[in-house]
């Protein structure tokens, strides 16, 4: 390289300064607010306190946290059960087809989450397409409640984040090479055994990355539980929003946000510590 480290520093510093001012400082402020008291009319009173964190242990809020973790876990498991075979299907197609199939899978991910979530309201409501289809098939009479519950939230999460499960698993399968994947997937008898003894262990980093990719954004999601939970079931994201905009309790909202980041950070660090960082970055690079 002709220009030295000074030139490189000049290249990276504008962006890093931007993030220092518009990412580190704002998040730091949220962290600080979580240790302050709430003013009588909203706002923040600059008196140190741990009350917000004590309050977060109230069964009411622990329940919301527990429900968020449960929904994120359910979404992750469902995505894995669908995503692994789908990734296997794509990886065993001829090379010229794989890119097209991958694009088909990823494309919806890049469209508006808000709009697709609204579409699920249209599909899942009592008079929606899903209920009419169930009636036509004679499976139900009248209608089943598909909307404004845990089921609707998980459907919304899976339809949003499933591509993030498929991509890293596909990347891991592709890295094994088509021969190995074919050999493991073929050979008729004992396909299950081969799946568990060859493909799953060898693609474990991809599977782990996919699980993190689905779990992390599901846990803190706001739009999906807000629209599909119908205000009946709160998740951390909707609770943070209501503390900020409705209850006007910024310190407590900040406390919940800090707890959320702490959980996500722990997960991501664990993933990095497991030494799978390269595969994670590769998969994200692919996704964008």
């Amino acid at each position, binding site marked *: 390289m*002709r220009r030295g*480290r000074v*030139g*490189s520093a000049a*290249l*990276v510093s*504008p*962006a890093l300064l*931007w*993030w220092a001012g*518009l*990412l580190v400082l*704002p*998040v730091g*402020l*949220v962290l600080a607010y979580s240790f302050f008291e709430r003013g009588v009319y909203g706002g923040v009173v600059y008196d140190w306190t741990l009350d917000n964190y004590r309050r977060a242990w109230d069964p009411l809020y622990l329940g919301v946290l527990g429900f968020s973790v449960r929904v994120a876990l359910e979404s992750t498991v469902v995505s894995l059960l*669908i995503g692994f*075979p*789908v990734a296997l*299907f794509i990886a*065993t197609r001829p090379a010229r087809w794989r890119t097209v199939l991958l694009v088909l*899978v990823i*494309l*919806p991910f*890049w*469209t*508006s*989450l*808000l*709009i*697709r979530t*609204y579409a699920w*309201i*249209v599909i899942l*409501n009592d*008079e929606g*397409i899903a209920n009419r289809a169930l009636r036509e098939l004679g499976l139900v009479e009248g209608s089943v409640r598909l909307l404004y519950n845990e089921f609707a939230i998980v459907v919304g999460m899976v*339809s949003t984040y*499933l591509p993030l499960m498929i991509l890293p698993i596909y990347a891991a399968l592709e890295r094994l090479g088509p021969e190995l994947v074919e050999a493991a*997937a073929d050979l008729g008898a004992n*396909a299950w055994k081969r799946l568990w003894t060859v493909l799953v262990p060898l693609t474990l980093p991809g599977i782990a990355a996919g699980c993190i990719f689905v779990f*992390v*954004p599901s846990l*803190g*999601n*706001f739009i999906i539980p807000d629209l599909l939970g119908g205000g009946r079931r709160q998740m951390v994201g909707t609770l*943070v*929003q209501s503390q*900020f905009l409705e209850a006007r309790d*910024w310190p407590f909202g*900040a406390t919940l*946000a800090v707890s*959320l980041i702490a959980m*996500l950070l722990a997960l991501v660090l664990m993933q990095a510590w497991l030494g799978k*960082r390269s595969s*994670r*970055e590769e998969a*994200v*690079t692919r996704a*964008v």
Partner: protein
Amino acid sequence: MRSRGGELSLGALFVGTLAFLYLPIAVLVGLSFNESGLPTAWGGFSTRWYGELVRDEEIKDAALATLVVALGATTLSVLLGTPLAFGLDRLRSRTLDGLVFVPMIIPDIVYAIAFLSAFNLVFTQKLGQQLGLWSVVLAHATFGIAFVAIVVATRLAHFDHSTVEASLDLGASELRTFLEVTLPQIAPGVIAGALIVFTLSVDEFVIAFFTAGIEVTLPIKIYSMVRFGVTPVVNALAAVVLGVSIVLVLAAMRLRGREEAA
């Protein structure tokens, strides 16, 4: 040979998954052409709701606001993200490379309250400046920089540095080398990154909702239409926004695909 049954069930699962992923999009597009405007009854094909969409002044204003925000955020992201990618490519620091992914894992609701808290403290309380489209631009550029940097850095990883050496050895200035050798080669990456940030900004709701003050962008408009009384116009609007996103993302993917083939 793997059993045909196994092969068939994998194929069926794939088709079913695509149907599941595209169902929301198909339903809204279909609904937007429904004369009755109701999801419950097909009243015949009609472009009526698109006509109402075009005549809606509030939606027009929101579309213009969205465009201003997306252009501003994209410009800033390219101006800061591209040099960052070059720097990352030279420094080859794993820590820095990892750092670029941090803005992408922070949940949007956390971003939203962090920006609201900081903007409120600095601009509203100290400077008496109300939040507006400009604050949404700053917020969107913050994650946009990361996307541009990652996409351009991938391009740089495939970049043949010997062409730069050759140009400099042949006596071209650094500026001329950058403009005539480096830039043409990485331009598709920069454009792809820009398209991705533009799309993300146009579709972004949560952060805009918290940082736009009294301004209204398209996603904010769509949210209020969905939450407080759905009119069939929202379906036409949704179909248009979905169409725009799909075209932009396909263009970005095409630009990036060419690079991988090269």
